[in-house]
């Protein structure tokens, strides 16, 4: 991201700041806020029965005639060139249809990287895919084999004989630091920010913490590995995909393979978990290219190991957080800087300092991130990129400072809770962190905590409690359209190319559409998962729900106008304008005089029509610039640590989320609980074992990459403040990512409370505890 972008975003903020509120989205609150309709009701996933009965077909399951199966070969070296390559044995192996290497792969342009300014760019890596003999990271795909069965493909792949001329690779985090790059911006924010002289204030303050916190790489481990089934008919492509970005994937493939956008159809009705991983990666290009060459459908299903090798995860980070306060607790300095890996061919800057910029008021601040350029598979977005690891560092430091000051850590946080965004001075749209802490502390029994570490004990188990704040920004995507088709019998179908990675998109959007259109839930259907539908933005930044809601609301407004026009002079509503009626109970109703109404059936019948269809896009998300829109959460942890072995076992987690309106308590609780479980895994066990000698991931599988097992997961109490955001569609802010944030810090803080030992390096494993304790 560039200086130019800083300037553009800066001027958007300034201009939007001048504009009167009523001109902007969110200027007047969404009329559905606070209405008790379908939104807010407990509703199970509408596609649940399909999934539990196996009727839902995932990308790797679509039956096709003539299908052939792909297997991949990965480079075992990190840098160099292919010296010799012999594919004869593989080509002669039973069932082999094609062997694709850099020699035979069609020449293709690099894939444009994901960008906020170009919604059709979806690449996670700008590296060439089988275009040359260069090796750029350990795990890079060097060959693809197609065969009649997956087993034949796999065997033939093992017969490809490759030797490499190895070159020195940059694989060491520490060694890369002297050449670190300082980017001008991080996503849409300026990277380096400073107010006052934070270093000086740090030295002069009564209390201060200045520490380095480290987090390892994390890998994606969604239950469904990446898979595509690609089928060409002439120059038309159908891709069955597991993706979080349907429309952008279709656009990218059209461009890459030089065909018309309308000749690409990406279908992704079900996705077995995304978390940021299910973007556009090399397997898309490989499968589509191979299928075109052999003129047969191709299925490419990544093995679990391949997901680790060729799909990036979360970058490791090394973060410095320094925090100082005067005796009353007011922060005098806040510094958050650090290093993460971001090769120039990657797309995700791991924005670990962004959360810190919005969370506390401090007199002097300094923020800035440095990027390390290593020869690795580019890291990517992973649930709450940045905030997940950034909140571990920041919220551990706050706890350290509170302990030093003998102050309750909640109290210290609330004394520094800002009224306006600390850097921009822009007002928050809604913010109730104090309320979240109040509710949480009461429900959790925070008062029972003993502030002196290592004082509560049951047998060999040391007991501890900790808390920490989580946060995540509000994001609404600057694109996306929906189509609404209303039929005379009072049924509506709402459609766009939205993605559902298991969160319940179709369920919640059906609830919303019912309320927005004034229809019962049973009369509404939500179509999605198909790039032939009006384009929805990618599901990212926890922004899909509100982005689609805004588009549906815009389309509903357009529908209202069209219906009024059709209703004509014979209508009881004659003379009213779109702003003077609302969609209710299967028709239009005058706002001023509810007795004046006209049903959809009557309007369409009089006009001699069976149905009416409108397509509309939402207004640009300028509310994001006019207001500071941020979700926050209060996390609490109760745990025990064995004084013998150092094993940490969580007893209870509780989170109170200040995330705006909750659209469906059942799907929301499950989303939030899942996020907290991921936070628990990050705290205790998740770690990519990256061997810096070879640049290779040594635990590329779920036996050795430890996500939490059932027994690790305690009772998790999920609550929310439920206060709507007056500036967002439906008052909602997006809940996909926030729940992972703050959890690791709450756990680390509880470990300190239990043991008196401060661990600053994730995951919090028993060897680190024993070592710190000098066992």
């Amino acid at each position, binding site marked *: 991201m560039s200086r130019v972008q800083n300037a553009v975003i800066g001027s958007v903020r300034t201009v939007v700041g001048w504009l009167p509120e009523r001109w902007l989205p969110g200027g007047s609150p969404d009329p559905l806020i606070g209405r008790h309709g379908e939104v807010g009701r407990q509703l199970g996933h509408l596609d649940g029965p399909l999934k539990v009965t196996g009727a839902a077909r995932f990308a790797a399951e679509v039956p096709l005639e003539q299908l052939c199966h792909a297997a991949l070969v*990965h480079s*075992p070296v990190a840098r160099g060139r292919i010296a010799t390559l012999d594919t004869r044995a593989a080509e002669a192996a039973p069932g082999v249809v094609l062997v694709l290497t850099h020699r035979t792969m069609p020449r293709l342009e690099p894939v444009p990287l994901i960008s906020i300014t170009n919604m059709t760019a979806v690449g996670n890596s700008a590296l060439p895919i089988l275009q040359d003999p260069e090796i750029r990271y350990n795990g890079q795909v060097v060959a693809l084999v197609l065969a009649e069965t997956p*087993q034949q493909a*796999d*065997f033939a792949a*093992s017969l490809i004989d490759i030797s490499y001329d190895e070159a020195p690779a940059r694989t060491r985090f520490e060694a890369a630091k002297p050449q670190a790059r300082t980017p001008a911006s991080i996503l849409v924010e300026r990277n380096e920010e400073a107010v006052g002289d934070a270093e000086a204030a740090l030295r002069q303050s009564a209390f201060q913490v200045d520490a380095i916190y480290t987090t390892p790489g994390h890998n994606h481990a969604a239950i469904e590995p990446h898979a595509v089934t690609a089928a060409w008919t002439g120059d038309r492509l159908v891709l069955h995909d597991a993706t979080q970005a349907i429309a952008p994937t279709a656009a990218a493939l059209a461009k890459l393979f030089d065909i018309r956008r309308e000749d690409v159809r990406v279908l992704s009705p079900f996705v077995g978990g995304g978390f940021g991983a299910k973007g556009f990666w090399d397997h898309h290009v490989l499968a589509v290219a191979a299928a075109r060459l052999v003129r047969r459908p191709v299925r490419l299903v990544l093995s679990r*190991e391949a997901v680790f090798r060729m799909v990036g995860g979360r970058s490791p980070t090394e973060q410095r957080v320094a925090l100082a306060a005067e005796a009353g607790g007011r922060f005098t300095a806040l510094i958050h800087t650090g290093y993460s890996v971001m090769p120039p061919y990657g797309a995700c800057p791991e924005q670990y300092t962004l959360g810190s910029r919005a969370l506390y008021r401090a007199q002097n601040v300094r923020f800035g991130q440095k990027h390390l350029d290593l020869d690795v598979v580019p890291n990517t977005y992973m649930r709450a990129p940045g905030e997940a690891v950034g909140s571990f560092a920041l919220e551990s430091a706050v706890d350290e400072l509170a302990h030093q000051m003998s102050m309750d850590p909640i109290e210290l946080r609330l004394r520094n809770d800002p009224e306006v965004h600390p850097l921009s001075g822009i007002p928050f749209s809604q913010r109730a962190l104090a309320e979240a802490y109040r509710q949480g502390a009461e429900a959790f029994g925070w008062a029972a905590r003993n502030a002196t570490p290592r004082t509560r004990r049951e047998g*060999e188990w040391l007991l501890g409690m900790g808390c920490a704040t989580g946060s995540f920004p509000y994001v609404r995507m600057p694109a996306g359209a929906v189509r609404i088709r209303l039929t005379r019998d009072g049924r509506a179908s709402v459609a766009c190319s939205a993605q559902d990675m298991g969160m319940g998109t179709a369920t919640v959007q059906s609830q919303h559409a019912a309320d927005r259109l004034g229809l019962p839930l049973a009369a509404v259907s939500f179509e999605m998962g198909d790039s032939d539908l009006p384009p929805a933005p990618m599901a990212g930044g926890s922004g899909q729900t509100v982005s689609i809601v805004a588009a549906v609301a815009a389309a509903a407004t357009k529908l209202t106008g069209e219906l009024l026009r059709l209703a004509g002079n014979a209508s009881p509503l004659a003379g009213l304008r779109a702003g003077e009626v609302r969609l209710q109970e299967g028709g239009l109703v005058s706002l001023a005089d509810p007795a004046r109404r006209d049903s959809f059936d009557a309007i369409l019948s009089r006009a001699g029509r069976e149905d009416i269809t409108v397509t509309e896009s939402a207004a640009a998300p300028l509310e994001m610039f006019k207001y500071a829109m941020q979700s926050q959460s209060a996390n609490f942890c109760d745990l025990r640590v064995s004084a*013998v*072995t*150092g*094993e940490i*076992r969580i007893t209870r987690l509780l989170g109170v989320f200040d995330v705006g309106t909750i659209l469906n308590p059942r799907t929301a609780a499950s989303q939030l609980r899942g996020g907290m479980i991921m936070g628990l895994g990050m705290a*205790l*066990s998740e770690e990519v*074992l990256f*061997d810096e*000698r*070879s640049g*290779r991931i*040594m*635990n*590329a599988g779920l*036996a*050795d990459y*430890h996500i*939490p*097992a*059932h*027994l*690790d997961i305690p009772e998790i109490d999920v609550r929310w403040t439920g206060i709507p955001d007056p500036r967002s569609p439906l008052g909602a802010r997006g809940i996909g990512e926030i729940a992972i944030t703050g959890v690791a810090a709450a756990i680390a803080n509880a470990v300190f409370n239990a043991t008196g030992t401060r661990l600053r390096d994730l995951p919090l*494993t*028993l*060897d680190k505890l*024993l*070592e710190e304790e000098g*066992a």
Partner: protein
Amino acid sequence: MIPFSYSRAGTAEQATAAAASGHRLLGGGTNLVDLMRRGVEQPERLVDVTGLSDDIRPTPQGGLMIGGAVRNAALAGHPAVRREYPVLSRAVLAGASAQIRNMATVAGNIMQRTRCAYFTDAATRGCNKRSPGSGCDAQGGFSRYHAILGGSSACIATHPSDMCVALAALDAQVHLASAAGLRVVPLVEFHRLPGDAPHLDTVLQPGEIITALELPPPPAAMRSAYRKVRDRASYAFALVSVAACVTVDRGTLTDIRLAFGGIAPKPWRALRAEEALRGTPATPQAIAAALALDFAEAKPLDGNAFKLPLASRTAMAVLADLIGDAA
């Protein structure tokens, strides 16, 4: 994975004949098939031996004879095992997952290979166990799960089994068969230390198979425990585990058998500590001193030095509990 043939053996004779002609034995496949998928093992012929004895029956001496094809779950759940040898039941249940235990066989569990990450990844170059003479990438790499005792400069891999740690403490015997006949090897002598031939995990000879496990009768009034220390609460291999069987008579430890997992290339009997403690009141100080005798020769690396204090702390806690409960 390379193509392979598959057949089934109905009797031990068929199995030994198949083994002698170069077949690899297939139990539940939970280890072998994983390694075949990753190209670490490349057998061309498999013979399924899950049809061999899956009996658990009492021996004339008052012990138990356990068929090699008994599933791990069946072993852990067997009433006689739960009653007479609870340490074995607990150790088996501490391992893997319910699904894996339902598939895994007793013989396969004994024969399972190390989880060393450099061994299980055929694309890494240096692994003497996988490819003799190629080096040992674990040294200087990730060695957290590796041995502090019994390793060599050629290999520091651990044997990952939980079950075998309990078997070591119970003085189990392994029954073997081949065309040449039958033989019986104590479990503690069944797994080899790597020395300069780490590719040989056990003393099993080519053409030989495991037919059964024999447990001697449990000592009267024996109290036992298995404790596994690990990164996750379940479904993780042991960083350190301890199996202990003790008999306490009026404050004196009349019998003690103590075995460790996760710290050596084989289940590690702490024979020196046992000897030092047998016949004493076994105070905490005495236990600590006795354990130090076994750990004196430990050669920890940076990545696994924590196992030294961890192993003795865990053993001390386990013994203190057992002795305390008996008092």
